[in-house]
């Protein structure tokens, strides 16, 4: 049996109970004076009645204090909760508590997450829950217990110790985990979602749970200002430049407020610091570019930052950049393939390009460009996932359908693509496609014609590709009769230009080398997602390269005074992998051998969490919206007995007794 206060926010009212005591103490200390003719009789009377009057005074004080206490307590709407069990049913409640980055926004004196934990703790304390569990809504949702348990004190203890994470929230995963656990229990099942209901995360989300699970949404925050200025992205073009290559560092700042803002963006890179004043329109985004180049290969880190605001997690952003000495072009072809050998000669002419011929497709991490000669429809999904440019030169028998699949288009004819050849002295000529975008970087050099035709020469064979292509396909080079010679979609390039010397004079032309260099670099330039970045909330991992002993490695947080993070080793097919025991938080991390940095990694604030606007939980389909105080009241009302009216009765009774006691005049003791 326990008490519960439905209006606990009015608890301070109990302080007023000291009023009668203060009145009793202070009123006697300085009452008004009255000059009277004789006090000797009064002294005599007091002496006679003292035995009764003093206890009477204290009794009156006690009764008045009790009356006021009872009245004040009635305002708090106390409820008496009889035990934890409802007749015949067990109540299981799972709290889905949002601890994503937006929950670190300040709401009043504390952050949203603290408020959420406080509410959950109050609900756990309400005494109507038989067993419970907490599922954390973050990048990788997990729960405190594997399944709901009765140890509510432990849950409350964990709630008091948990901190918000600088991560995004995986809503579906967290909801799935919670509902799965609830489905395994019997009795009354309830899912309480305590979140700020961030607009960007919840606007398109639908709460779909199995029948029999009661969903309650408790919104936290939203009253405070959602104004925020955030660096939403920091990347370079290209993502992995080679030594000496001109590099564009791009930083985007977004203004999540109704008023235009002005701030200074600074960029720290390799010990240099640059800054730039930036104006960001209301609800707009501004892109700030810095140009630089690096003279030495290896990993380098950079940090972009703006002045700290109330939501500071997204005011800095980090990037670890791999400055490459060479880029690896891998040809998948027979060892003596003449076209592949043409690329070998090309690589020999470009200092930053390294070419290798292999008959089996290489793993993605071992290649920067993949040139697949004699492509018979093999799957390139793994390379697409790693955004590795793939140049596919069809083999005989390749169907139109396979080409369409290559570009991710809807299937077309399953017929093989026709292959044309020309007699010895004749051939097809190709040039920049009439449908090409001449402003494309790959063609920029040639659009004036000063540098000639990038596909100069004669081609003696080709595939009879369809002349009409989807708008999403970029046409770079076409044969003079309109047959596409080079088609590109992002990092996928369909190659219809023969590279073998016996079928093409193009590799011998002066424009071949610059065009190929521009094509390779531009196709790669599109890739800006391949930065060495670890998602916040996941564990930092690295498989040491040859020559680095895992035992000698230590992991350091570059910002947090170089603090060392504990690691553990794991055997994988690629070797020994080192994993941090803690989850990554935004910042730069150094893997060190002694004092030397051998590898760097960065983790960044999830940009989707920067928009602090919330959504009305009513607009989210499913469940009932209840504010926490109402939920507490309902919880107590459901299982408890309100007794405020008893307190009012008690107060009136105390006042009645007080009146009777004060009216009662003791008879003076005759002996006195």
């Amino acid at each position: 049996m326990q008490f519960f206060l439905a209006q606990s926010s009015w608890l301070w009212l109990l302080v007023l109970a000291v009023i009668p005591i203060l009145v009793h103490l202070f009123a006697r200390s300085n009452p008004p004076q009255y000059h009277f003719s004789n006090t000797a009789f009064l002294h005599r009377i007091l002496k006679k009645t003292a035995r009764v009057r003093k206890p009477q005074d204290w009794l009156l004080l006690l009764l008045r204090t009790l009356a006021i206490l009872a009245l004040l307590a009635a305002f708090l709407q106390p409820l008496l909760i009889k035990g934890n069990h409802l007749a015949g049913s067990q109540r299981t409640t799972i709290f889905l508590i949002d601890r994503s980055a937006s929950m670190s926004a300040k709401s009043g004196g504390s952050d949203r997450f603290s408020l959420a934990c406080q509410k959950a703790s109050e609900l756990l304390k309400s005494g109507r829950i038989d067993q419970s569990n907490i599922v954390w809504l973050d990048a990788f949702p997990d729960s405190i217990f594997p399944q709901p348990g009765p140890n509510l004190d432990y849950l409350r203890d964990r709630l008091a110790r948990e901190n918000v994470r600088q991560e995004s929230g995986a809503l579906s995963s967290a909801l799935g985990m919670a509902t799965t656990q609830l489905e395994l229990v019997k009795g009354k099942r309830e899912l309480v979602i305590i979140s700020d209901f961030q607009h960007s995360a919840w606007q398109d989300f639908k709460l779909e749970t199995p029948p029999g699970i009661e969903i309650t949404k408790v919104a936290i925050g939203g009253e405070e200002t959602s104004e925020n200025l955030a660096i939403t992205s920091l990347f370079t073009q290209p993502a992995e430049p080679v030594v000496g290559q001109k590099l564009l560092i791009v930083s985007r700042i977004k203004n999540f407020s109704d008023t235009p803002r002005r701030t200074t963006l600074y960029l720290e890179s390799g010990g240099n610091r640059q800054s730039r004043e930036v104006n960001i329109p209301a609800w707009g985004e501004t892109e700030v570019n810095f140009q630089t180049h690096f003279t030495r290969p290896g990993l380098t880190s950079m940090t972009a930052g703006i002045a700290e605001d109330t939501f500071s997690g997204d005011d800095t952003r980090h990037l670890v950049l791999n400055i490459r000495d060479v880029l690896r072009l891998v040809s998948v072809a027979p060892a003596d393939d003449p076209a592949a050998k043409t690329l070998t000669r090309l690589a020999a002419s470009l200092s930053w390009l390294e070419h290798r011929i292999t008959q089996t497709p290489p793993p993605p991490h071992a290649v920067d460009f993949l040139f697949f000669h004699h492509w018979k429809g093999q799957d390139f999904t793994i390379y697409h996932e790693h955004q590795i440019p793939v140049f596919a030169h069809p083999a005989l028998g390749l169907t139109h359908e396979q080409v369409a699949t290559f570009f991710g288009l809807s299937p077309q004819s399953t017929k093989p693509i026709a292959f044309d050849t020309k007699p010895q002295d004749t051939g097809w000529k190709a040039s920049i496609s009439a449908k090409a975008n001449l402003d494309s970087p790959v063609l920029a050099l040639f659009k004036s014609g000063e540098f000639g035709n990038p596909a100069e020469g004669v081609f003696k064979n080709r595939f009879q590709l369809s002349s009409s292509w989807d708008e999403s396909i970029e046409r770079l080079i076409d044969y003079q009769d309109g047959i596409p010679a080079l088609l590109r979609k992002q990092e996928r390039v369909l190659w219809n230009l023969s590279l073998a010397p016996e079928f093409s004079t193009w590799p011998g032309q002066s424009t071949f080398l610059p065009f190929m260099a521009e094509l390779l670099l531009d196709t790669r330039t599109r890739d800006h997602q391949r930065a060495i970045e670890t998602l916040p909330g996941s564990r930092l991992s690295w498989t040491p390269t040859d020559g680095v002993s895992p035992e000698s490695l230590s992991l350091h947080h570059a910002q947090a005074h170089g603090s060392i993070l504990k690691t553990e080793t794991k055997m994988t097919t690629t070797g020994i992998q080192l994993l941090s025991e803690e989850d990554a938080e935004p910042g730069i991390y150094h893997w060190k051998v002694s004092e030397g940095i051998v590898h760097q990694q960065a983790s960044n604030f999830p940009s989707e969490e920067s928009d602090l606007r919330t959504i009305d939980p009513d607009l989210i389909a499913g469940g009932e919206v209840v504010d926490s105080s109402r939920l507490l009241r309902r919880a107590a009302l459901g299982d408890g007995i309100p007794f405020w009216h008893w307190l009012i009765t008690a107060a009136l009774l105390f006042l009645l007794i007080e009146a009777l006691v004060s009216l009662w005049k003791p008879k003076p003791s005759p002996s006195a």
Partner: protein
Amino acid sequence: MSKTSYKYIRPEDIRRLSHYEFGVKALVEGYLSGRHRSKERGASIEFSEYRQYTPGDDPALVDWRVFARTDRHYLKTFEQETNMECHIFLDSSASMGFQDEGPITKLEYASFFAACLSWLVVSKNDRVSLQIFDDKIRHFFSPGSTRRHLHQLLTALENNEPGNETSLAESLKRAHPLIKRKGTLVILSDFFDEPEEIFKALNPYLHRGFRVHLLHLFDPAEMKLPDRGLTRFVDLETGDQLTIHPESLREAWKNEMRQHLQSLRRLAASRQVDYTTTLTTESWFKLFDRLA
């Protein structure tokens, strides 16, 4: 007398006093024959009583006719009419300066009455004395019946202020040798003194045949305690302080006052002393009815 108006006696009072007679029933001892009865043998022919002869009595007063009938010696006594002496004792202690619900202080009330009484006595060619006392006799005016004497008394009353603590018993003791002839003793006080002590001090006077009137004065607030909240009561005489809630002690106070009055009344009755209580809200003329 150069002064024609006095604070404590007003023209309307004088008009009203002309209808009053003082000391009709009083037996006085004085030199003016004819007006008041006296137990002293004198020129009067008003028979009083027979009294058995005791050694030392004048043999000429023996009634021989009675001796002839009864063979015993009896004296035939006659009442002698003479002028009256009125001795006013005015309590001027600090407690007499109390005023709450009444229109004037008790001392002012007593002064009004004393002034009127003095005028009445002097106007009938009787003699009046005044003792103003608190814990001692502050002023003593020996008996007199002249206008000048009356002027002195009225002026003294005007200049009188509440003083120290009350000690009626002590004052009575000290005044006793000063009063040569028996007469009427009028004591105006609030009697915040032990009744036994008061009457112990009155015994010599009673022994000498004084007629004593005790006029007990009250402010209405003293009868029931004032209607106030928690209050610090400061004693006007001693400065003693006491914090009480009057409401909580009202009944006990009334009870205490009742006992005090009963005690005074009982002792007065046992000694044939006239005892009267009056409130300062009442007219002091009603007191003359008690004295008549």
